[in-house]
């Protein structure tokens, strides 16, 4: 028996829509669940006051700072390094054995569980280099962790820029660097920013790699060599040690709102940027 195309078409639409809807539902469920659980403790005071009694009461201000500073440090280090590497791989070398090895290595690196990066950071940055449990150790570890993501997404973005743009630029007497600067990078920017946003999201919610390297001090840090605690680590400790479930969910709610707003702002900025160019 043959099923008429109009029925298979309808069937396909239903299945595709159901899949999409399911994903949205899962996301909505998680967000709503966390927000409802954490809602009771959410207040301005919760955000701007320091935790008391290990976090049993009081707010989460130092962990907000920790969650802001670590990803920023990680991106400040890994962003330029990753983008420049991808420009080199994409624009300045031809496909050789070495570029293939580099690409393979970055792929392997991005598949390594974050706790391994945590262990590496502990051994290398905390102990060997003597940075101790500190913002610097944590930021460097996160930078190493997100570097492969930034390199690979930037590379994809650069490759997606039509070859004809480069040819045109060269044909008008542009050097390679000028072509990269004026034509290739601006057109790859949306993709590069997406990769960087992904990396910020990953580092802001990272726990394993951070707890081993930045420590879990609840004091407000005053230098790069101070230990700090991020919201994710705070949540982990509060929940695991059974200190305070309410405050744990409150922290999680703030974290989730932060990540969602960062994504929304990035999305909105990108759209404006793209609209302006075309």
């Amino acid at each position, binding site marked *: 028996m043959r099923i008429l195309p109009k029925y298979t078409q309808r069937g396909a639409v239903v299945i595709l829509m159901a899949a999409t809807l399911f994903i949205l539902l899962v996301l909505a469920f998680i967000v709503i669940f966390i927000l409802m659980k954490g809602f009771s403790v959410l207040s301005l005071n919760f955000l701007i006051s320091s935790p008391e009694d290990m976090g049993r009461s009081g707010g989460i201000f130092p962990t907000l700072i920790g969650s802001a500073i670590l990803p920023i440090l990680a991106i400040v280090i890994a962003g330029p390094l990753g983008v420049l590497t991808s420009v080199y791989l994409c624009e300045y070398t*031809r496909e050789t054995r070495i570029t293939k090895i580099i690409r393979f290595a970055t792929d392997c690196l991005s598949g390594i569980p974050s706790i391994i990066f945590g262990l590496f950071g502990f051994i290398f940055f905390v102990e060997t280099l003597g940075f101790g449990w500190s913002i610097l150790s944590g930021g460097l570890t996160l930078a190493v962790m997100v570097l492969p993501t930034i390199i690979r997404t930037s590379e994809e973005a650069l490759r997606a820029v039509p070859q*004809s*743009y*480069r*040819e*045109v*630029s*060269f*044909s*008008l*007497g*542009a*050097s390679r660097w*000028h072509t990269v600067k*004026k*034509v290739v990078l*601006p*057109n790859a920017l949306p993709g590069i920013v997406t990769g960087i946003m992904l990396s910020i999201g990953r580092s802001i919610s990272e726990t394993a790699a951070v707890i081993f390297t930045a420590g879990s001090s609840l004091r407000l840090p005053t230098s790069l060599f101070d230990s700090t605690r991020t919201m994710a680590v705070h949540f982990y400790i509060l929940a695991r040690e059974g200190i305070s479930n309410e405050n744990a969910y409150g922290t999680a709610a703030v974290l989730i709102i932060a990540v969602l707003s960062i994504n929304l702002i990035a999305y909105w900025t990108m759209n404006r940027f793209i609209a302006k*160019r*075309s």
Partner: protein
Amino acid sequence: MSGMNIKFKIENLSIFCNKEQYLKNANFDISANEILGIIGPSGSGKTTFLRALNRMNELHPGFRNEGRILMDGNDIYSPDTDVIELRKKVGIVFAMPAPLPMSIYENVVYGVRLSGIHDSQKLDQLVEESLTESYLWNEVKDRLKLSGLRLSGGQQQRLCLARVLAMKPDVILLDEPCSGLDPISTSKIEDALNELKKNYTIILVTNNTKQAARVSDKTAFFLMGEMIEIGDTKKIFTSPLKKETDDYITGKFG
């Protein structure tokens, strides 16, 4: 007509990419201030030859030349040649209209800015001049800030021509510039070329033999990597010396 001046001298030129040979031992001259039409079936080496004249081939790995190309007496492949300066003097319009994803204005001044001209009055003037020469000014003068990608295919191609003209080159290479265009856009480009040859040397690769007959002063016929015949357009189209040329023009193959 100053057809006596020789712009390019092609000497024993062969072009290879990896193991394959795209051009076989070509020898001929290209006069200044004329339009040379290059015709021939696809795969005959026309485009490869054209792209050799401003060293675009070398952007792709594997390309290699034998023989020489002299421009105004200088070997353009000699180590002393500055390839960036060469490309400023020998502009190219590609087969597919390829505006850069920026405004019309920025497209036109892209190459000019590279040469260090930043005076906005000078740039404005260059934009108007070049767009006028490429028969596009009247259509876009009120919307120079519009993205070049928003123009129609025919307008885009004239924008690409303007972009080259703004550089004040000596030579303009055109690689089937009208292959994707409607007849009206095509005739506008042809009109522009007829005006331009007073000041520039133009080399036009075309799949459309009628176009070569309409606009070029001299015509060269390429076949399977060989330059079969070159001569005055009238002669090539009425009494070609070689049988292959005659067969191609009369449509027996290709």
